[in-house]
């Protein structure tokens, strides 16, 4: 296997206390080793003088694989006709691909790698369909991956919560994470999928309202699942798309969501990760007049240590929204009046896919744009913040370099604001915010924070000995380059990494894919009381035949069905 020696690079590696200095990095057998351990007779030497060397990027929330992503692809052939998404095959080096907002799996892997990202977490997968999610992830080149499993509206979970049987909830989650080879527990507008099945979900569901057809509230679900994650020592805290997403005034529900679980803290001190928080930070009572709830939310998050979030940052371009929040997507369809696809999953969850274009002259879109940035800039600790666009909901992930520029350069923000709806700008705090992210904060928010949240910081998000050799080298030198003024250079440098190294293999050079390899799929294997597990399994089997349409045995995904499974057993 390749050995590498990366010399003279300017390294930022906060987890190892390296805050910007020249450090040589050694790579051997896919791991980072002391530079002296590298055999120079066989190693490739990369001269990274004048370049920034950081761990590979990690995306904590992105919709890249699974049934609703492919629904999005099928819904938007016009996205694939566009030349900008075209990836031409080079036999032996790379496969072909299409798509900008809903790319094919090949394009996804390559474009993440090209930016220096080496791990992605699929944001939401329904258990019955997770085999499909794994198929797509297996075909996604280069990056390592994991699956967030949709569990909030699952009939078994709802029953056990109604019975107030926390240990049964725990056992069920331990079982289903392993049975579907998934990594973490995902909630999307908790309870709304059940309401949607009853056809009554025209009214959005708030945290303390009883879910139609049940006797539980979304808060009950939040608490039960947070407890389970803590009891089972699942590395990732509950990953929550909060109730009332997209509705003006929802920042209050978001605060209530946080407060419901803020003191249920896992062994890493984390209680909740809020997905694409921008969509849940609205103040006001109508789209035409809504304003930013970022200040209130940032204030709360600044006082709590266990709360993290990803931005869900808007970019102004045509994109596709897709979530398990079927009722919200239905509302959006009535606003856009163009295309809508929905998919219910028996006993488990639902989904909706609606194309949408964010526009610079539309008041609401500009407020949304401002909110994402305000949240990232008003929260003091950048390790609570992860960059995301909730790809593709607020925009394609390929726009991350632009978002990084907005965070690191006030001038970049001002240049964008010149083109935006002025009435909206007047209502935002953003124009007055001077803060610019430092290079270290850039590394925190794109590498360290997501690695810690996911719980893989042992081997991702840092460049210390023993870490996976996932490294990004960018053609910028923080000692001499100030992105504050010339931010366009930053965008280009991140968009086209000088080198991306994945598991010790050079996969990107000068912004071009030079090798196709496939990464691992992380999943969680956790243990619980065997007696309770047995009880729960008997209960599941007794109802499976009536509730489901496949057999219990066929439901489980076997390890050999995944190309490169990697089990994490929490200690």
């Amino acid at each position, binding site marked *: 296997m390749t050995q590498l020696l990366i010399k003279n690079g300017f390294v930022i590696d906060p987890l190892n206390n390296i805050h910007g200095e020249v450090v040589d990095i050694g790579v051997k057998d896919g791991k980072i080793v002391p530079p002296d351990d590298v055999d120079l007779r066989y190693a490739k030497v990369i001269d990274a003088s004048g370049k920034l060397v950081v761990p590979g990027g990690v995306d904590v929330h992105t919709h890249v694989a699974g049934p609703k992503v492919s629904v999005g692809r099928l*819904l*938007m*052939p*016009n996205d694939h*006709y566009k030349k900008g998404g075209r990836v031409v095959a080079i036999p032996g080096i790379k496969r072909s691909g299409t798509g900008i907002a809903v790319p094919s799996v090949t394009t996804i892997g390559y474009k993440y790698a090209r930016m220096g990202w080496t791990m992605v977490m699929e944001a939401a997968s329904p258990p019955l369909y997770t085999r499909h999610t794994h198929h797509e992830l297996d075909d996604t080149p280069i990056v390592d991956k994991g699956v967030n499993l949709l569990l909030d509206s699952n009939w078994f979970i709802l029953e056990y919560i109604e019975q107030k049987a926390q240990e049964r909830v725990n056992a069920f989650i331990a079982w289903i994470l392993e049975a579907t080879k998934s990594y973490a527990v995902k909630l999307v507008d908790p309870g709304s999928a059940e309401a949607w099945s009853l056809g009554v979900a025209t009214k959005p569901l708030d945290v303390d309202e009883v879910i139609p057809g049940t006797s539980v509230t979304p808060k009950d679900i939040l608490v039960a699942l947070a407890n389970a994650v803590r009891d089972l020592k699942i590395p990732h805290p509950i990953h929550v798309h909060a109730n009332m997403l997209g509705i003006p005034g929802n920042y209050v529900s978001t605060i209530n969501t946080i407060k419901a679980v803020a003191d249920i803290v896992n062994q890493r001190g984390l209680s909740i990760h809020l997905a694409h928080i921008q969509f849940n930070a609205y103040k006001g009572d109508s789209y035409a007049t809504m304003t930013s709830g970022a200040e209130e939310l940032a204030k709360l998050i600044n006082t709590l240590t266990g709360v993290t979030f990803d931005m869900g940052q808007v970019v102004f371009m045509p994109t596709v929204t897709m979530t398990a929040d079927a009722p919200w997507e239905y509302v959006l369809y009535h606003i856009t009046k*163009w295309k809508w696809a929905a998919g219910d999953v028996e006993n488990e969850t639902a989904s909706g896919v609606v194309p949408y274009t964010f526009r610079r002259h539309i008041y609401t879109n500009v407020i949304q744009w401002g909110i994402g940035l305000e949240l990232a800039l008003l929260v003091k600790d950048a390790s609570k913040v992860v960059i995301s666009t909730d790809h593709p909901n607020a925009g394609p992930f390929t726009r991350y370099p632009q978002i990084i520029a907005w965070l690191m350069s006030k001038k970049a923000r001002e240049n964008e604001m010149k083109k935006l709806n002025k009435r909206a700008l007047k209502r935002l705090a953003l124009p007055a915010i001077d803060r610019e992210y430092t290079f270290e904060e850039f590394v925190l928010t794109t590498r360290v924070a997501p690695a810690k949240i996911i719980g893989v910081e042992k081997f991702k998000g840092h460049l210390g000995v023993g870490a996976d050799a996932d490294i990004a080298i960018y053609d910028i030198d923080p000692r001499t380059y100030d992105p504050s003024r010339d931010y366009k250079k930053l965008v280009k440098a991140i968009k086209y990494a000088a080198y991306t190294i994945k598991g010790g293999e050079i996969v990107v050079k000068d912004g071009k894919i030079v090798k196709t390899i496939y990464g691992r799929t992380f999943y969680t294997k956790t243990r619980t009381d065997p007696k309770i597990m047995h009880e729960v399994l008997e209960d599941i089997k007794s109802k499976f035949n009536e509730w489901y349409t496949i057999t219990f045995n066929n439901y489980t995904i076997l390890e050999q069905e995944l190309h490169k499974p990697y089990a994490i057993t929490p200690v």
Partner: protein
Amino acid sequence: MATLILKPKHEFTVPVEVEKIIPDNIAGKSLDEVLKIRVYEGNRRRTLGELFEVSGEVAEKPAEQEIIFQRNTCRIRRIGEEMSAGKIIIEGDAGPLAGFKMKGGTLIIKGNAGPWLGAKMKKGFIEVFGDAEGFVGSKLRGEELYSGMSGGMIVIHGNAGREIGAHMAGGAILVEGNAGILPGMHMAKGEIMIKGNCAGWPGTHMIGGKIIILGKVESIAPSFYFEAVKKKAKFVKEKIPGPFYLFLGDVLDNIAIPGKLLISVKNNPHLKYYEQFVEEVKDEWVEIV
């Protein structure tokens, strides 16, 4: 006009794509450079000189360039794609996507044309002496509503296939023969005239524009409401004698100013049923949108 003549060197047995062989790309080049222009024969990359015998002259400006494709087959795709000036003549059939996204100039097809003729056309003139297939002047599947043809004129002397002028936002299409089902589906603006028969359901989901049919229409979709009998109609400013049944629609699409269907009274006795819905036969010109 300087004329360049292209004659296939051998019979094409697989699709040949010639999207770069337009006056815009040829005018002002040397003959040598022209011979090197990239064309595709199936999955093989070729040059123009490899596939065609090239004779004639290269013009200085695109507007002065005429290109003649001799001995064509239905396998040549994307002829005249995005051309903005000059003239292309095909002395035979043309394959799919002829005149795709055309921005100006003239395209003449002496034989038949494949599907998506003149799709997304902005300006220019296309004339087909034989038949055309489906989706003339339309858009590709899944693209935005009303992103079909937005200007220019297409004349088909023979028959045409389904959904001609679908998603049209301007321009005009004339079919002298018969047309397939659903002409003008999702039409927003523009004019279509079919001199022959129409296989059915013209204008469904129209939100504007006008379709005139002189022959027999198998059936009208129930979402069109009968409005009046008109003595005459206008197509591209010319008077067309009627009388015509005027239908307005599409009711399902909730529009303020509806699209218009003008269907020949004489050739559609089966539509007489609708006459009961009006009190008297009016005698007016139809206003042009």
